[in-house]
């Protein structure tokens, strides 16, 4: 049924474009996108664009996750700092982070590094908030149990707080992979010589909306693949849940 809906949509799109119900110049059509895709794939620069965006996303996502994890562990460790930082996190969380992208790119530089930093900025605040919330919701009696065994704070962290947060960590990762994509594409819109975001901007500037549409389709496919990867990791890691 889910696949059926997609196929039905594609067929309708194709028919509507062919019969000129809608203007194929503006909305493109599946066959035009497909032809363009083959052409770009043959030229050899499509996989380069994909490679650039995917690697920026993965690097940004990984750095953002590691950094976010470290910061949330720090906040869990120190109640004092958690209280100090709390209002800043709340404000940063409601701020649309891609608004920061232009500044970041000026500060960090208009290359891969700027794009990666903007990916980190978009995803990290939500990561920190979710992870920290999960850490502090660790069952107090379980902490007490480990204390009766004479556990140190570090042992409580590694034996209890981190493993019990794994389900939440994974759902955080699922969210932040999407946010990293937002950061990367925003960055590529602003400055880039390659990447899917670059293709989309280029396509719209030369008014070849087929390119824009192809970029979007490729993005959708890539996010679906990454989501699937996360889901399969989740399934493997969470074999202890019902």
């Amino acid at each position, binding site marked *: 049924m889910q696949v059926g809906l997609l196929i039905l949509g594609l067929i309708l799109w194709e028919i509507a474009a062919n019969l000129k119900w809608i203007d194929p110049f503006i909305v493109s059509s599946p066959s035009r996108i497909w032809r363009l895709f083959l052409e770009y794939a043959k030229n050899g620069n499509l996989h380069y664009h994909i490679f650039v965006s995917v690697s920026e996303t993965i690097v940004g996502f990984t750095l953002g996750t590691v950094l976010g994890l470290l910061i949330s562990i720090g906040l869990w460790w120190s109640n004092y700092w958690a209280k100090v930082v709390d209002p800043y996190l709340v404000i940063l969380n409601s701020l649309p982070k891609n608004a920061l992208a232009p500044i970041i790119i000026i500060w960090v530089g208009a290359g891969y590094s700027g794009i990666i930093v903007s990916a980190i900025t978009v995803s990290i605040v939500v990561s920190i908030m979710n992870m920290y919330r999960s850490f502090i919701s660790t069952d107090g009696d379980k902490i007490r149990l480990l204390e009766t*065994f004479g556990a140190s704070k570090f042992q409580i962290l590694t034996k209890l707080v981190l*493993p*019990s947060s794994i389900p939440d960590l994974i759902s955080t990762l699922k969210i932040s992979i999407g946010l990293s994509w937002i950061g990367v594409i925003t960055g590529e819109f602003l400055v880039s010589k390659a990447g899917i975001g670059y293709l989309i901007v280029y396509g719209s500037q030369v008014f070849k909306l087929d390119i824009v549409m192809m970029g979007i389709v490729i993005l959708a496919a890539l996010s679906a693949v990454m989501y699937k990867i996360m889901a399969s990791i989740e399934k493997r890691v969470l074999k202890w849940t019902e």
Partner: protein
Amino acid sequence: MDNTKVVEINNLGITYHTLEEETEALKNINLDVYYNEIIGIVGPSGCGKSTLLSIISGLIKPTLGDVKVNGKKVDKPLDNAGYMFQKDQLFEWRNILDNVVIGLEIQGKSNDEAIERAKDLLHSYGLGDFIKSYPYQLSGGMRQRVSLIRTLLLEPNLLLLDEPFSALDYQTRLAISDEIGTILKKEKKTAIMVTHDIAEAISMSDRVVILSNRPGTIKKIFNIELTCSGDRTPLKCREAQEFRYYFNEIWKELDIHV
């Protein structure tokens, strides 16, 4: 019964301070617990039963008086006491074997020999087929048994049980309290058990301590002497003719009005 004192509680009192007021939770508690004895503590809710256990285990410091365990004053969390909670507190992400050895792991005592001992205990208490299972695959009673084994593996000479069966349904509760009472006697453990189930306290304990309303003081101590045929197990104790007598006396002492 052995005359060695395992726990000595002298003039113990605790007062909680908040910004607005102070609450005296426990007052003038004096109690000696002897080797291989099971003490049941009952009392109205909020009388400080669980606080008393936390003080004995060293997790909370008393305001007045002191507690000695094996002749040594308690001033930090005990490492030779086993604590059992209302819920089994098994770690969902660890299989049963890894769950029972967590205490050993924390104390750096986990080695092949200890793991073999853990397996033996699991086998002898009917959990041999579940060594590689995860907690969600076990019934409530089995989970509580796993949690007892986790406690026993550390070879505590004192067990502190904080309403250990109250999260179980009634039938399981009867069966598991019988089983655990028998295990405690067999392994020659000394135990202090907080409960609000009078029948459970009578059937499992050698002495039942009644705490009063806040501030909790010891109102009365009953020596439970039941005539049971054969081995004394908690379930058989419930058939003893004195059972009803103790039940009524304790109920009267508790003085509960609703």
